[in-house]
């Protein structure tokens, strides 16, 4: 029986792998001699590939953004499937959509789980720290390979939004529109503090073995799970958690037990999220990407002046924030907007009412999706007018 997917679904998709043998110099001073990047594409490129859109993933995301890998398991589409597809806000009838797993990741692109050519063992903690700028450079090489001279848009939420911002700064002429969603111009001390607790959870797990756990046939499950549980609390809002879980008890009553079994629904939710994450994510990648987040600071290259960083950009910007997001609160997005206005750049800003906290950027909130759709409809019109 042929697979049946909803008409607005991309349907079945297949990841591809790009090989790069020209060394990539990294911000940390080291370089990757050769590396691979896995990516997916949806939609059809136009003649000059000017309808290409890059989606950048966040901490725990990957290249599988939309559609399904397995026709027998239609329950698990890509992480932003509600936004990408024919007729969806990022409309694959208009755009050729590209998303890659970033370097340092654990879903197929070269990262800590890959084999280090120097010693034929997994890199583990010896994998170089990569920055958002490194990612953007590696994505530019992928664009070269795919014959994409300029992105119609680079779009990302959270850490993905930071990449969209960095793209406009690093390659002003290769990006027409930068969509920066639920992001920040750099992490606050509080953000870094949360990352540090997550890292300590992993580092202090006896199964961590200084990052060489692959050789011991174990994974620091408890540490990674704790890190994810902590992360999840920062992705939700107080009101959102109250609405979703309240103080609901799993067995309907308090047991006054001292064994700390899950009693409240929120406990069981967090444990479930933690467990599920351990099975699909690598602890070294988690450590690495939290550092990537901590180091992101485009203003640092411009005397701490963010608007100076935007002076050379040519892209038009759409900045979106969500009211209940306290990880990267609307005030952080407004810092970006203020810097763009001071630099005289084209920018629009939408502040979407939502109680989903930071996670809102993944939710099909009607106003949010209408803003994306409205903006991208114009981008599509612009692209086809240029192509004509």
């Amino acid at each position, binding site marked *: 029986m042929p697979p049946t997917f909803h008409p607005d679904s991309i349907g079945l998709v297949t990841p591809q792998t790009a090989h790069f043998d020209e060394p990539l110099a990294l911000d940390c001073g080291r370089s990757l001699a050769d590396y691979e990047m896995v990516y997916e594409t949806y939609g059809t490129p136009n003649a000059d590939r000017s309808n290409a859109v890059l989606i950048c993933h966040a901490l725990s995301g990957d290249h599988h953004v939309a559609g399904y890998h397995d026709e027998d398991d239609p329950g698990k589409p890509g992480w932003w499937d509600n936004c990408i597809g024919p007729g969806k806000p990022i409309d694959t009838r208009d755009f050729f959509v590209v998303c890659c797993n970033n370097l340092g990741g654990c879903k197929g692109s070269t990262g800590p789980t890959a084999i280090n050519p120097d010693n034929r063992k997994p890199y583990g903690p010896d994998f170089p720290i990569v920055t958002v700028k490194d990612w953007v450079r590696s994505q530019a090489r992928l664009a070269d390979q795919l014959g994409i001279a300029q992105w119609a848009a680079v779009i990302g939420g959270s850490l993905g939004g930071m990449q969209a911002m960095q793209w406009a700064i690093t390659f002003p002429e290769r990006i027409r529109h930068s969509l920066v969603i639920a992001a920040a111009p750099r992490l606050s001390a509080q953000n870094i503090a949360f990352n540090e607790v997550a890292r300590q959870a992993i580092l202090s797990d006896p199964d961590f073995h200084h990052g060489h756990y692959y050789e011991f046939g174990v994974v620091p499950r408890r540490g990674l799970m704790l890190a994810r549980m902590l992360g999840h609390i920062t992705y939700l809002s107080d009101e959102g958690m109250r609405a979703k879980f309240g103080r609901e008890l799993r067995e309907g009553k308090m047991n006054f037990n001292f064994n700390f079994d899950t009693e409240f629904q929120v406990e069981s939710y967090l444990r479930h999220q933690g467990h599920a994450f351990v099975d699909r994510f690598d602890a070294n990648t988690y450590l690495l990407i939290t550092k990537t987040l901590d180091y992101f600071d485009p203003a640092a290259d411009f005397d701490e002046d963010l608007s100076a960083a935007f002076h050379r950009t040519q892209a038009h910007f759409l900045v979106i924030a969500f009211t209940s997001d306290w990880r990267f609160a609307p005030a952080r997005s407004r810092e970006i*907007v*203020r810097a763009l206005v001071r630099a005289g750049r084209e920018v629009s*800003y939408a502040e979407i009412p939502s109680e989903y906290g930071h996670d809102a950027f993944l939710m099909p909130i009607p106003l949010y999706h209408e803003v994306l759709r409205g903006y991208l409809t114009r981008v599509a019109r612009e692209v086809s007018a240029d192509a004509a």
Partner: protein
Amino acid sequence: MRPELELISEWIRPGARVLDLGCGDGALLAYLREHRQVSGYGLEIDSANMLQCIQAGVNVIHADLEAGLADFGDSSFDYVIMTQTLQAVRQTEALLDEMLRVGRQGVVTFPNFGFWRCRAQIALQGLMPVVKTLPYQWYDTPNIHLFTLRDFEQLCRRKRIDILQRTVLDHAHRPRLGPRLWPNLLGEIALYRLGRA
């Protein structure tokens, strides 16, 4: 609305940088962009209006003007425009100051409460006026500061704001003879271009 856009547009230098406070659906900015090649942004608090701006390709910043214009630097715009908004904000005086801090010039339009029909309705009927330019009942009106041309000009004098230009219109935004001769009595809509030395 169109004639008002045209009149404002005549006051705007081509290529200027413009900030439109309470930009609504972005019609004025779109018009100025087309006819005066301006660049700039609109500030708008209403989500539906913000969405319309995005759909129209007008730069919009989804924000509350009542929170002030702290995000914008001194004299960072050639013009700060406020059409039919001044009467609906709480911080009227502070916003006028902010306007002339951020903009080299300000453009303001508002309904004239001194229009003879308003006076007549209060004087003869003893009721809060309901006229074409102020169509709301007292209990559901967004217009919380009602004032006349003379009120406004008195405030400008007191605050040392220079009135650079004034046009007074009827409710259909036509600059007719009556409003020109007796602006505070026959004018229904006032347009001012302001500056501060």
